[in-house]
């Protein structure tokens, strides 16, 4: 760690310790990279996400081939730019001769759909439970938070594969499982906000003006959690896409022949020594998507809720 140079290293550390306190970028190079990374990241993230949505919606138009069309005569064709590749099949074909690019394009539908739906289902439940727990405290708070503790005291993927194993793998079950796993984060966040706000003057005022609990919860507390929840929900979508692809990779998520990125990796891993493109491209698609959403989340956080620490 902290280099072996003594003279110059020590100087610069003095400067940067002071800088860190003032929190202004120090060198010109530092400022440049900072601007590039921080400001551009949001735009890049947004672009990736929009591109993803466009690809998912326009899949039938954009995909050069039917993602399910098999032909063993053209199995394991390498990408077009390699020897033996065909310009017809830009990213090559899989073990059944299906076009990888088309499968990746169709696979984006599953990823986005499951990522979004599982958050759309779990977020409102989590927020409501969290607000109720934080506002009323007492018994309801104890029960909700103990359930949350149990769920966090547990590698979620293990629970997910168990439920998927018992219920049988299907997109609907994956969404349900992920929704069950996702609510805790939102509940904790909403509860924290509600707890810190319930004694504030404006809530007191609303109560003394005769505002009912329902009104206070949804008209006065809810607006205060919207910003952080949007930020956390954005990261949640990325998390859910990763979890879905993990489940599909293990063979417990979306089932073949439906193209899903995790499933493609699962199929491709048996051919790793002969056909690297089966696993490389779908994995890159997952990473790019998740990275894009995370970039967007970082940017939204700076925009909406600067108080949230970059953790």
């Amino acid at each position, binding site marked *: 760690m902290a280099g072996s140079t003594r003279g110059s290293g020590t100087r610069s550390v003095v400067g940067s310790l002071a800088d860190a306190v003032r929190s202004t970028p120090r060198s010109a190079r530092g400022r440049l990279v900072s601007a590039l*990374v921080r400001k551009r990241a949001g735009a890049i993230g947004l672009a990736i996400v929009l591109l993803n949505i466009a690809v998912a919606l326009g899949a039938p138009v954009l995909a050069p081939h039917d993602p399910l069309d098999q032909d063993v005569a053209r199995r394991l064709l390498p990408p077009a730019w390699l020897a033996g590749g065909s310009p017809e099949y830009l990213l090559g074909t899989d073990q059944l001769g299906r076009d990888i690019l088309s499968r990746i394009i169709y696979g984006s539908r599953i990823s986005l759909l499951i990522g979004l739906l599982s958050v759309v289902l779990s977020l409102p439940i989590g927020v409501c439970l969290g607000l109720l727990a934080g506002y009323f405290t007492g018994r309801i708070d104890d029960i909700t938070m103990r359930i949350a503790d149990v769920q966090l005291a547990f590698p979620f993927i293990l629970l997910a594969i168990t439920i998927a194993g018992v*219920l049988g793998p299907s997109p609907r079950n994956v969404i349900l499982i992920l929704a069950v796993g996702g609510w805790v984060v939102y509940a904790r966040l909403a509860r924290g906000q509600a707890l810190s706000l319930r004694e504030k003057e404006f809530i007191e005022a609303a109560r003394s003006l005769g505002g009912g609990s329902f009104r206070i919860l949804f008209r006065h507390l809810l607006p205060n959690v919207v910003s952080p929840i949007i930020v956390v929900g954005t990261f949640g979508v990325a998390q859910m896409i990763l979890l879905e692809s*993990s489940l599909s990779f293990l063979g417990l998520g979306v089932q073949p022949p439906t193209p899903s990125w995790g499933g493609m990796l699962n199929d491709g891993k048996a051919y*790793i020594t002969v056909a690297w493109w089966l696993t490389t491209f779908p994995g890159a698609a997952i990473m790019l998507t998740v990275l894009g959403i995370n970039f967007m989340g970082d940017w939204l956080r700076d925009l909406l809720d600067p108080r949230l620490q970059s953790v």
Partner: protein
Amino acid sequence: MRRYILRRLAQAVLVVVGVSLVVFFVIRLSGDPTFLLLSPDATEADRVRFAHEQGFDRPIYVQYALFLERALHGDLGRSLRYRQPALPLVVERLPATMELALAALLVSLLVAIPAGVISAVRRDTAYDNLTMLGALFGQSMPVFWLGIMLILVFSVRLELLPTSGRGGLDHLILPALTLGLYSTARVTRLVRAGMLDVIGQDYIRTAQAKGLPDRRVIVKHALRNTLIPVITIVGLELGTLLGGAVITETIFAWPGIGRLAVTAIFQRDYPLVQAAVLVTALIFVLSNLFVDLLYGWLDPRIRYT
């Protein structure tokens, strides 16, 4: 301190009971548990007898009490495939999983603490920005893809390291890197944030004003105080690692609990799945308990809140 320990112990017990409830009900999600817990070729008479033995014909809370009582005596049912008690089968795999998880934890701490500290100290420099960008990449990378890419490069192309199995140190390198990356990224960000918090404190300025060398201020004054919250994260990280081990073990054919659980699910060997899940949860709860106690010992303020 004693009250603190007792309270933490009670919470841990509560969590374990909660986990056992979850596992108990998940197995019953499918309806008749005899279909999950007995082999598919069991006859109707077998089912009825088994249901009676296990108390499946009794009220659900009695069933749960029976399940809990057996579990406390170390009886988690018999594996359908191995035709042996499930618990020893899981415990047998424990060293492999712990080896992998601890190696990954070691990798991530060795990288993340220096990286995070330097990032905070050189805030907003090119180094800091690149580190944070790298961390975001690390957190966006699917574990299974990373594992496959590492195999592709280091085993298939360069033929440097084995693709699978457990053996010497060379077998451990790729799985540990695969499993450790996500934690490395997260811990780096946490150490950086923690250091930034601490660097702004008055006592750091005092230490600097005293004329102490910067290295000493950073390591002795700033880092030490940053590490206390980091320890809690390490406890949570161990859980993430145990969970991630499910996938890493599958990719590298690592003979640990995670791989056992996944194969058991595909073989519909639910007693074994149940045992694997319970044991993993127990390890997780115990490690969190240990970390909490350590935390209370390191930072006396915690005990009294």
